[in-house]
């Protein structure tokens, strides 16, 4: 009885294993219904021929069958790079891409450790614009221009830095002008407002009655505050989950530092975090601006917006701010542009599809003139690139990947998925222009007025100083410190840390 039982069981196991192995080939998975396939994840129709340039280059560089590993923040653009572009790359070249998309903190944690220890764990890493100067100072990155010069066989003819928007300049070595990383996203942080509410005749009339002037996207901080106050009250009166403004005011994450120093302070005319780049001083008495009257006015305005912001604001990073806007909980706010596309068109995630408008953020008098003259900027121009750590063991294969995703054929769908642009030609793509209409002009704003925005200042000590200043911003948001005291102490702490780091005396 027993031997018979075991024989039958063994046969069943063998048979089931065989069926499991054969099944995928014998029974293809049913095709996904077209209606359910999100447009953003469609692979471009121009699928690669069997022996494309990249396939040949991969063979010649002995990359076929190899795996390159990368790490990036889990954002819409990076997720699109992982799927479908990386998968398409693997299919075309035989180079597998192991793509780790994780949180912003974890990403930096991992890649900095990898590059500092020179372990060669990653073959490409995500580099946000604000950290690139620190990486360049530490010689963490492979010089892409030089590497392609050294190995012309790996230089794809379609890859040309001149095709990129001016954002690529952030990733050039200031000394040699060489490209050190290849951009994969760039976007501005505009003012986003609820167009449906702003166009509502009843709301317009009520606002004009309350404020004494017509309702329109704010161009001054007084207007911004009036609008915030009005919609917060409107939400209460009409029992709506609606507030007047977003605030990226987390009290446990550096995101609040970034909203103040890269969005609010510049729009008040306080640039470069208030640090004087000539002498590395931050306090007014030493030539800095961090605790200037204007900086204090900016911080007072911004923390004051918490009164008109939804309760999640003190826990909100950039992701939660986008979620707040998409949930229809705020009438206006500063939202990272990479989210504009999905907020405006993705009904599975957003309650405000087709209902948002974009505009330049409100500014202090004279700030736009400063920006036009190249003396300042009105807000944040963010973006990222993939670069190759010098410790990478698959540099040639990673070089192919960097040029692969920068091809024009991917850009339109990628822009739709992640509201990001890296090539100048992408602005003219029909799909991008269509999304531009849905977002009421986001891409037009980035194209025509993007030059008014700027990335983070070129500080090699970015993360260290951020960690010094951020606790003061948190305490101000909590109401534990007065704005004036917080900025006075922040500038002193900044100066002390800069001296410790070897900047200034």
């Amino acid at each position, binding site marked *: 009885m027993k031997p018979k039982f075991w024989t039958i069981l063994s046969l069943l196991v063998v048979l089931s294993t065989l069926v499991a192995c054969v099944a995928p080939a014998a029974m293809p998975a049913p095709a996904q219904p077209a209606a359910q396939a999100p447009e953003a994840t469609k692979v471009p129709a121009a699928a690669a021929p069997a022996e494309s340039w990249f396939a040949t280059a991969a063979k010649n560089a002995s990359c076929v069958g190899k795996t390159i590993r990368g790490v990036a923040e889990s954002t819409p653009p990076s997720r699109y790079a992982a799927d479908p572009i990386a998968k398409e790359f693997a299919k075309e070249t035989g180079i597998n891409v192991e793509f780790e998309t994780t949180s912003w903190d974890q990403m930096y944690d991992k890649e*900095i450790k990898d590059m500092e220890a020179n372990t060669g764990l990653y073959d490409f890493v995500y580099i946000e614009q604000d950290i690139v100067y620190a990486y360049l*100072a530490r010689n963490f990155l492979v010089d892409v221009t030089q590497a392609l010069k050294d190995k012309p066989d790996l230089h794809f003819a379609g890859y040309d830095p001149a095709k990129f928007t001016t954002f690529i300049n952030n990733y050039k070595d200031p000394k040699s002008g060489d490209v050190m990383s290849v951009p994969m996203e760039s976007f501005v942080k505009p003012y986003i407002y609820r167009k449906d509410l702003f166009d509502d005749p009843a709301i317009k009339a009520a606002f004009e009655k309350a404020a004494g002037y017509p309702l329109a996207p704010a161009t001054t901080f007084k207007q911004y505050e009036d609008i915030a106050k009005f919609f917060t009250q409107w939400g209460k009166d009409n029992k709506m989950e609606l507030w007047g403004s977003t605030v990226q005011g987390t009290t*446990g994450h550096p995101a609040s530092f970034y909203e103040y120093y890269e969005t609010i302070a510049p729009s008040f005319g306080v640039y470069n975090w208030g640090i004087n780049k000539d002498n590395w001083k931050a306090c007014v008495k030493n030539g800095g601006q961090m605790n200037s009257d204007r900086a204090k006015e900016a911080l007072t305005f911004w923390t004051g917006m918490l009164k008109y912001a939804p309760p999640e*604001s003190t*826990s909100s990073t950039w992701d939660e701010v986008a979620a707040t806007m998409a949930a229809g909980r705020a009438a206006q706010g500063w939202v990272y542009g990479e989210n504009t596309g999905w907020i405006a068109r993705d009904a599975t995630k957003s309650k405000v599809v087709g209902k948002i408008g974009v505009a330049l953020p409100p500014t202090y008098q004279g700030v736009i003139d400063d920006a036009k003259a190249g003396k300042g900027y009105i807000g944040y121009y963010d973006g990222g690139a993939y670069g190759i750590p010098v410790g990478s063991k698959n540099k040639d294969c990673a070089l192919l990947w960097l040029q692969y995703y920068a091809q024009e054929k991917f850009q339109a769908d990628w822009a739709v998925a992640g509201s990001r642009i890296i090539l100048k030609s992408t602005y003219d793509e029909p799909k991008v222009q269509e999304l531009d209409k849905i977002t009421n002009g986001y891409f037009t704003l980035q194209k025509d007025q993007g030059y008014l925005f700027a990335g983070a200042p070129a500080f090699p*000590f970015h993360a*260290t100083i951020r960690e010094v200043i951020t606790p003061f911003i948190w305490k101000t948001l*909590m109401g534990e410190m007065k704005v004036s005291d917080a900025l006075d102490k922040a500038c002193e702490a900044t100066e002390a840390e800069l001296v410790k*780091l070897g900047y200034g005396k």
Partner: protein
Amino acid sequence: MGWGLIAPTLIVLAIIGLIPFFYVIYIGFFDWNIFSAKAGMVFVGVNNYRRLVFDEDFLRALWRTLQFMFWAVGSEFVLGYLLAQTLVRDFRGKAFFRTVHALPLMIAPIAIGATWRLLTIPGFGPIPYYLSKWFGIDYNIGRFASHASLTVVLMDIWHWTPFVTLCLLAGLTSLPKEPLEQALVDGANRWQVFRYITLPAIMPVVLTTFFIRVMDALRVVDEIWMLTGGGPGDTTRYIGLHIWRIVFPKTDYGYGSAMSLLTLYFTIVLCWMVFTAIMSRGQETS
């Protein structure tokens, strides 16, 4: 032969335990920030340790950690003992309750933090929603220090009380019944039975469990990082999280290493005190 058999374990321990430990000691004598203008490591002797003694942020983080440990571990022991006493008795659905109540132990700390974040996030979480709707309480862990502190303690209690319960339950079920019955016959009340018979008998289990929980509470990072990120401000920035922020986001490796070592020393002292208590108790018993 014996050394040969344990050699693989010793080698692994040396690689993953001793080498990093000595490396941290070494780094602690240097000023080393990778984004400093002064490239590389600069020898500063014991200066990092001297700075630590006067570092208010570090001392505050240490003090907050002790407070967290006191409230969390203390509450877990009270609740854990009451639950263990309940589970000693027979009642309908006991097996089901015992299984369900131990489920938090099987969840990864990072998932616990994420779950509590979803429960308590202002504006979206059900806890602030219902507290506001039913009691008019403006519960906001991103804004109010007391709310955040209370929430992290509650999360830790939720996570670790089952562990204490199971340990104490094991102790209670192993007790002989005769002394308890004799005490009751002699007229002892429930408090006297607990104070003079049950507690001394399960004291080794209590101390061992306490020892484990104290160590866990002193090195808590992942749950808190997920729930509050150490905020609001530095309200829940306990020592583990504080060291993480100094070493990784701030990239101040030398100072962070010194901080780690001093914290380790502090932890060892606490361990030694608990260990001494366990040993002296064992000697008294023998």
